[in-house]
């Protein structure tokens, strides 16, 4: 009896969490324009892939998320390693601060930074500012994932490498990095996802040439619910669901 109740409870919660996504995906295949089922069709997928605004937004998003993920993984991994070597708990405290800061505050502060910096540099808001902003907020995610792996990492492995003649950098690249590589890859995927996903910060620091996919979708959705949005959103759900699963699998290794 108790087991049944728990099972039903779990099913309800899962339904509550995922029913909206299921409905979204269902109606993305609807032949009609409204939320009345009129038959199966892939016309909205065709329309989405032929929409120049959407494809440009997707391209921008992929470039930004790709570059930001690589840079933040590099910086975040080295940061986690440095904190692990130095045993600096207050530094990791500051990282959590950057995670809990409301996005709109982060966005406004980054915008303020850009405007201040532009007084000295002949630059304008654009893709580069979006990339800088994304690197800034992704570093914390990367660092926390890598730091969690390093906590279980046997320090004597690195000592053994140095004992056998490897300098500090060689010990890191030849022993520590291969050992934590799955976590680094997972962190990189996570950074890719949070960067691709971001709307608030991006919309504040983006220029005219750097509209990302979330910004395009948001603008479309405000003009009225178009099934094209459903189609694009479904594609994103599937692609990123797969990435997150991959990231989880890597973290378990």
């Amino acid at each position: 009896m108790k087991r049944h109740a728990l099972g039903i409870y779990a099913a309800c919660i899962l339904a509550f969490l995922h029913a909206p996504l299921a409905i979204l995906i269902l109606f993305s295949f609807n032949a009609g324009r409204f939320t009345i089922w009129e038959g199966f069709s892939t016309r909205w997928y065709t329309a989405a892939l032929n929409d120049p605004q959407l494809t440009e937004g997707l391209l921008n998003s992929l470039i930004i998320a790709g570059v930001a993920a690589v840079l933040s993984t590099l910086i975040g991994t080295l940061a986690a390693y440095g904190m692990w070597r130095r045993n600096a708990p207050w530094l990791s405290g500051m990282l959590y601060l950057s995670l809990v800061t409301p996005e709109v505050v982060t966005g406004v502060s980054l915008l303020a930074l850009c405007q201040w910096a532009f007084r000295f540099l002949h630059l304008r808001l654009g893709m580069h500012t979006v990339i800088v902003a994304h690197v800034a907020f992704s570093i914390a995610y990367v660092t926390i994932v890598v730091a969690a792996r390093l906590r279980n990492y046997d320090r004597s492995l690195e000592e053994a490498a140095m004992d056998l003649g490897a300098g500090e950098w060689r010990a890191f690249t030849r022993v520590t990095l291969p050992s934590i590589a799955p976590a680094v890859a997972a962190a990189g995927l996570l950074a890719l996802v949070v960067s691709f996903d971001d709307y608030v910060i991006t919309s504040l620091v983006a220029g005219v040439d750097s509209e990302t996919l979330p910004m395009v979708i948001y603008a479309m959705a405000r003009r009225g619910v178009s099934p094209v949005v459903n189609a694009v959103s479904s594609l994103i759900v599937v692609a990123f669901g797969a990435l997150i699963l991959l990231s989880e699998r890597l973290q378990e290794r």
Partner: protein
Amino acid sequence: MHVLELRNVVKEFPGQRAVDGVTLALERGGFYSLLGPSGCGKTTTLRMVGGFEKPSSGDVFLNGERVNERKPYERNVSTVFQSYALFPHLTALGNVEFGLRERGVAGRRERAMNALELVKLSARAQRFPAALSGGEKQRVALARSLVLEPQLLLLDEPLAALDPDLRKQMRAELKAMQRQTGITFLLVTHDQEEALSLSDKLAVMNSGRIEQFGTPEDVYLRPASAFVAGFLGAVNWFGDAGVRPEATRIARERPAEGPSRRASVASVVFLGNRVHVHMALDEGGRAVAELPRAQDQFREGDAVWLHWNAADEMRFP
């Protein structure tokens, strides 16, 4: 020239003095041990020799050269870690080749295979550490260090993680390997039997200091302090005289000469080739005598005389 010399080495950690003025000199080619209870500073001492900790004061010399400031990779010593610290992403062979590659040695494959042969593990060369047993990991760790032909091999509780049978076997092999290679071994252990059976000389440590440095016979038979006497084996205390159980005898009648005490048998423990007779002294306190099995004629409750030769007494100021 001593292969290793420590001069008044001190290591302080916040709120604690782990090593408190250790002085020690090791001759080339010997088998040495640092023996002591956990927290006595023996591992910290070893880590300062390996270059993983810097002394707070005092000096470390390797082959007459002061090496206080040298990094682990700038010293010709190698450590076998307690956890073995094998690289999980490399095979046994890859682990053994690691140091040779870092040092740019030619003929790596052959040397590494020879080292694996020395530890009788050639058949496991292509296995990853996860697929090796505890004893096999231990052998790979040894081969990985020995292949570099260090002046000094440091072993941090190398047998602690093995089960008892394997431990005895590896003990014999360690000794044989040391004799075969001629490399100076310095072993850290809290197991007195291990230290006594392996070492040419051992240093008994307590609270960050060396209480005695000598041959196994010296420290067991002529301990320099009550701590050393008690750490290396059981002691029956009669005032300020200590007597080992195997030097303690039992008689029904009062012996004509020599020191003796009245006691009653509290329990008799059968240990196969010998028996332990535990006694309560009439004057208060307890004592144990280790006797050959043939003498097993005492029963619980028997009133006896416990006696010993004055020459077997250990006395400390």
